[in-house]
């Protein structure tokens, strides 16, 4: 390369510290301050808060107060967050310039201090995947082990057969958390029974749905948990090599994963001899490069192999012929993060949580026009109303609720008449949406549903890999029709054409991207058809979002 090098720093690369620069206490702590250092709070200067607290504690001569960096505390809307775990007290919107209040509480807290009442945001949650988030230092292996980490892996490799592990997962009823909800036990059994001397385990951390950040948060807050889940899976399906395919847009998650892999290898929990047994398992990280379609498993495999991330027709499924045509197990971050808990507490325990067909908990990223945006984990079957209004605290500025969007660009918008619906895989499909990876975007009356449909179609059009015609051409044509509608230039014939195309693209596209792409259109047409008609017949945008062209441009 001969041209002048750019002098600015590369984008999307926050300064990442390898080791905590916070002081370590000599003896046991009377009280501690847990400072959230996940990306959201870090960008609001939470590391300065941690350093400021450490300085303040040193100045006040408090020798029995600890400051600890932890992962996501969940209530991202109120960051930076500091929690005193001894009493559960949570400080919101903490400014590094004004720490007197917290230092005062830290100085006066004793073992007799009563715990504070938890806000509704936390009260309704059941934490399995996120049980360590906000409680351990994500870059400390000791912290994870102290919280019971790697006990499940040790148990598996020393006292269980691979079939017993798979039975336990099958018994738990765990289903894939990437969105489609395929039974995890069934998938593991297929890979285990597939013929081949070399098998692979892949963790799909290419969290592509816009508005979803569960996997980022899990990887940033508790990376060892995912590694442990992968290692257990590898043991269960006889694999020895693992890959984590992570988005390049998540530099902190990648950095913490690298640290975790290094520490686990050094401690003999990954590598040639896991926990001093014959079982070997190595994990490598592969970075995505900004292609949404790589969340699709065959495209992801093509990308790990170094090529363009275009999907291939299935069958053969990756479980039979995946990475380099070898049997390959692909699960999502959250699926793997459930595994250590299932092994630790038993499949029956896990199956006792959730609904008839959807077991366990689900992590949701709550965002949009809701008061308490952040990361939540609730049992499957929790009513939507509880999530939006009890945990989410309702709509910002007291506006009216309009819809919840789930499932990303393959999902749909759920209107208010379904607020009391229990959230699980089947009920979401029943109302024309999709679980997806767990993004939940709340919309109020300021959102135009036609514009929302156009937004997602624009996304799919951009991200279509171009391999199959229905997706490549169909999404572009559908976007053009939606563009006409939002500009007030469409006729009823255009709408009919849009519906025909939606059906065609859904039925004839090769992979999930194209098959799901019409969903936002179909679901908004189903529940908000009047908004489409207002644009077409009255040339009016009820929400006042769309720029309707002045009358007469068509003539």
């Amino acid at each position, binding site marked *: *390369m001969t041209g002048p090098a750019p002098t*600015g720093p590369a*984008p999307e690369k926050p*300064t990442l510290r390898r080791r905590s620069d916070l002081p370590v206490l000599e003896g046991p702590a009377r009280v501690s301050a847990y400072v959230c250092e996940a990306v959201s709070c870090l960008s609001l200067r939470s590391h300065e808060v941690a350093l400021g607290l450490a300085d303040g504690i040193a100045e006040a001569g408090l020798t029995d107060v600890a400051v600890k960096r932890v992962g996501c505390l969940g209530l991202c809307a109120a960051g930076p967050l500091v929690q005193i775990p001894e009493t559960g007290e949570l400080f919101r919107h903490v400014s590094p310039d004004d720490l007197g209040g917290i230092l005062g509480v830290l100085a006066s807290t004793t073992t007799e201090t009563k715990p504070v009442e938890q806000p509704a945001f936390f009260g309704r949650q059941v934490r399995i995947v996120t049980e360590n988030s906000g409680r351990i230092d994500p870059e400390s292996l000791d912290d994870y082990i102290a919280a019971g980490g790697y006990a499940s892996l040790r148990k598996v490799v020393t006292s269980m057969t691979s079939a017993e592990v798979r039975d336990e997962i099958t018994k738990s009823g765990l289903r894939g958390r990437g969105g489609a909800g395929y039974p995890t036990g069934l998938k593991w059994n297929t890979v285990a029974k597939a013929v081949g001397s070399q098998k692979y385990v892949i963790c799909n951390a290419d969290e592509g749905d816009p*508005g979803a950040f569960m996997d980022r948060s899990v990887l940033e807050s508790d990376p060892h948990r995912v590694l442990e889940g992968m290692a257990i899976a590898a043991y269960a399906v006889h694999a020895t090599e693992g890959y984590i395919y992570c988005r390049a847009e998540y530099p902190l998650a990648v950095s913490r994963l690298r640290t975790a892999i290094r520490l686990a290898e050094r401690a003999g929990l990954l590598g040639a001899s896991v926990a001093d047994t014959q079982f070997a398992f190595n994990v490598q990280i592969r970075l995505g490069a900004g*292609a949404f379609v790589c969340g699709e498993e065959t495209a992801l495999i093509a990308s790990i192999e170094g090529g363009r991330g275009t999907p291939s027709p299935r069958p053969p499924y990756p479980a039979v012929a995946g990475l380099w045509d070898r049997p390959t197990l692909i699960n999502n971050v959250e699926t793997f993060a459930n595994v250590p808990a299932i092994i630790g507490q038993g499949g029956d325990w896990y199956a006792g949580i959730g609904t008839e067909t959807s077991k366990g908990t689900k992590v949701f990223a709550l965002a*949009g026009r809701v008061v308490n945006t952040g990361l939540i984990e609730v049992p499957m079957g929790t009513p939507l109303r509880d999530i939006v209004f009890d945990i989410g605290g309702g709509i910002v500025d007291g506006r009216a609720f309009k819809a919840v969007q789930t499932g990303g660009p393959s999902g749909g918008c759920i209107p208010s008449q379904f607020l009391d619906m229990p959230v699980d895989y089947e009920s979401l499909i029943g109302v024309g949406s999709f679980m997806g990876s767990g993004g939940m975007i709340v919309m109020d009356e300021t959102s135009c549903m036609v514009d929302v449909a156009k937004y997602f179609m624009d996304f799919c059009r951009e991200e279509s890999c171009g391999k199959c015609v229905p997706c490549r051409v169909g999404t572009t044509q559908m976007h053009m029709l939606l563009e006409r509608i939002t500009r007030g230039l469409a006729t009823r014939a255009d709408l009919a054409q849009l519906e025909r195309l939606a059906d065609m693209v859904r039925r004839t596209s090769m992979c999930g991207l194209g098959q799901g792409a019409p969903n936002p259109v179909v679901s908004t047409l189903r529940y908000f058809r009047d908004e489409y008609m207002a644009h077409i017949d009255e040339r009016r945008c009820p929400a006042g979002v769309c720029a309707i062209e002045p009358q007469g441009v068509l003539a």
Partner: protein
Amino acid sequence: MPVLPMRPTAPSDDKRWRIVETRMRRLGNRPEALIEALHSTQEAFGYIDDDALTFVSDVLAVPPSTVYGVATFYSHFTMKPQGEHTAVVCTGTACYINGASEILAAIRAGLGIKPKETTADGHLSLLTARCLGACSLAPAAIVDGEVEGRVNAQDLVARLTQL
């Protein structure tokens, strides 16, 4: 006597090529190292030019057409030099709901650039991201590597002008 293939040499004696070479060698100089090689080239130089593509193609024994195809398939890779400063505006769903398009419109009005463009003086490049995963802080942006939440369009334009 058999003719030994020449070991491909880096396009220049810039030391940053060693980073790229090391990354490829660690993965055995095999074709599957292609994306990793492109990542490290972009990390080291800020963008990927034709010389870099040819070099990577030679080392990994991957046809230049394939290297070009992969480099242009992924939106993360850029073949153009970037400006001195970079602003990335998130266009994820939460940011869209909370006004990301107004931010892009304000930057266009104030600085005259659209996404993927650089100002004429090479001062600022504007990019968009599908989702930064900072949805709680929507609308979000990254200015020179620092994530900023709850961005106000006018304030951001004022800041970018003064960078």
